[in-house]
């Protein structure tokens, strides 16, 4: 199962039998609005705080994922999830509502692939039959914690990114119909001394490069093995930097095969500056958009590399650099299509 130092290959092929994606009003105006299962008109979701509305997003995504299958919520063994709001409370409250055994994760925007990799590993080792994995984020809740109040009129630099409002959830099972998870590479913290919290793409790019490089080295694969290499939320600057860095290190990936979730979810005309970010960004785009394309047969094999910058407002104010991480998960279309 362990291949090399950081990579798991899953011989039993855990299957993503269903997914649930929920988005907010800004996402509804975006590029991939059709790939959402549920879109909300209201940022508040009729809750009395942004944190509670994030909790609701997570709950809805899980319920949708379960509802799409023939199994009941009680058949699910574990709920593996996390987010980036204070001590991941929105996810914990959602877990309370779900009433499932729960493993809370914190990997900022890399939570989506981390939870997916862990779910696949547990299922591969016969630790469970069904696991719900996913993550959520809320634009206003994240802005409030990491930046300024939502209505504050400070000017953001062109490197800033827009946190996605939404939640994405995948139901991973031992057997069933759907795309299978074939391998996962767990990343190391990469710290290049970047300190600007308004330029997370630039800070996270070397982490993505490190994980992608390790993945190909340890699995003995070539970039041409995958139809698409999908990064989480690097944005314009991070995508360009990481692509150049990969080419410099001898991993040649064609421009059109290297896509970023943060650049897929919104239209260019939306005022998101460098692109989207947030845990839900990679979760929604992967579980919604790219898995739908895989079901249509447009894609056969994808490598999802979600990147996370694991800083806190405190560490930034204390002038610490931003520690970054990236986890890669390789998803292939299941036997029902091939």
């Amino acid at each position, binding site marked *: 199962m362990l291949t090399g130092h950081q990579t798991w290959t899953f011989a039993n092929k855990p299957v993503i039998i269903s997914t649930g994606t929920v988005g907010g009003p800004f996402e509804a105006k975006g590029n991939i609005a059709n790939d959402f299962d549920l879109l909300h008109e209201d940022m508040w979701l009729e809750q009395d705080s942004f944190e509670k509305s994030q909790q609701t997003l997570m709950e809805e995504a899980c319920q949708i994922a379960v509802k799409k299958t023939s199994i009941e919520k009680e058949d699910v063994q574990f709920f593996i999830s996390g987010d980036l709001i204070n001590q991941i409370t929105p996810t914990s409250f959602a877990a309370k509502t779900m009433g499932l055994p729960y493993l809370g994760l914190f990997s900022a925007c890399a939570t989506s692939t981390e939870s997916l990799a862990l779910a696949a590993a547990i299922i591969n080792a016969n630790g469970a039959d069904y696991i719900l994995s996913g993550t959520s984020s809320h634009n206003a809740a994240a802005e409030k914690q990491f930046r300024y*109040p939502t*209505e504050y*009129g400070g000017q953001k630099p062109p490197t800033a990114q827009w946190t996605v409002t939404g939640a994405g959830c995948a139901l991973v099972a031992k057997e069933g119909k759907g795309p299978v998870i074939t391998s996962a590479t767990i990343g190391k913290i990469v710290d290049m001394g970047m300190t600007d919290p308004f330029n997370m793409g630039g800070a996270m790019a070397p982490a993505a490069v490190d994980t992608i490089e390790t993945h190909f080295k340890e699995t003995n694969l070539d970039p041409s093995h995958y139809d698409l290499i999908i990064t989480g939320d690097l944005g314009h*600057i991070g995508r360009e930097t990481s692509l150049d860095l990969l080419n410099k290190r001898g991993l040649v990936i064609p421009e059109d095969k290297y896509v970023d979730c943060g650049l897929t979810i919104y239209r260019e005309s939306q005022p998101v500056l460098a692109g989207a970010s947030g845990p839900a960004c990679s979760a929604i785009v992967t579980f919604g958009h790219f898995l739908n394309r895989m079901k249509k047969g447009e894609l056969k094999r994808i490598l999802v590399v979600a990147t996370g910058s694991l800083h806190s407002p405190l560490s930034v104010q204390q002038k610490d650099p931003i520690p970054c991480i990236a986890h890669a998960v390789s998803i292939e279309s299941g036997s029902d299509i091939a």
Partner: protein
Amino acid sequence: MADKKKKNLPPDAQEYQTFHDKREVKRPILKNCIKAFLVGGFICFIGQLITTFYIYFFNFTEQTAGSPTVATLIFITMLLTGFGVYDRIGQFAGAGTAVPVTGFGNAVISSAIEYRTEGFILGVGSNMLKLAGPVIVYGVFSAFVIALIKTILIQWGGL
């Protein structure tokens, strides 16, 4: 400053930062300055209109019309902030909306709105001046320093 900071980093980090800096999109400083100048000037123009209005139609002199003008501008800011317009103007204008009194008003009002969910005492009360607090602290402090310098100059410098 950036170079000094880089010196303490390991060589691979230094190399990456140089690599990255070539690809980073910089803030368009000149464009931002012009936008800030125009929008900031426009806010001052509105302020002048309000001042003139108070002088002509109410019993205020040039001296005393300042206070109601500031209050009116802050009231307008409150409406714009509450309706979610001010942050968009701010993204366009930058310092043009941050430097006039409207920017101070926006900093207070947006914090007050944001922390309403945490209650009125520990939420609004303690977070309202989160952004505007430093302005008050250093405004009072620098006023004190300037007053001290002036006093010393008048006492001993014979100005």
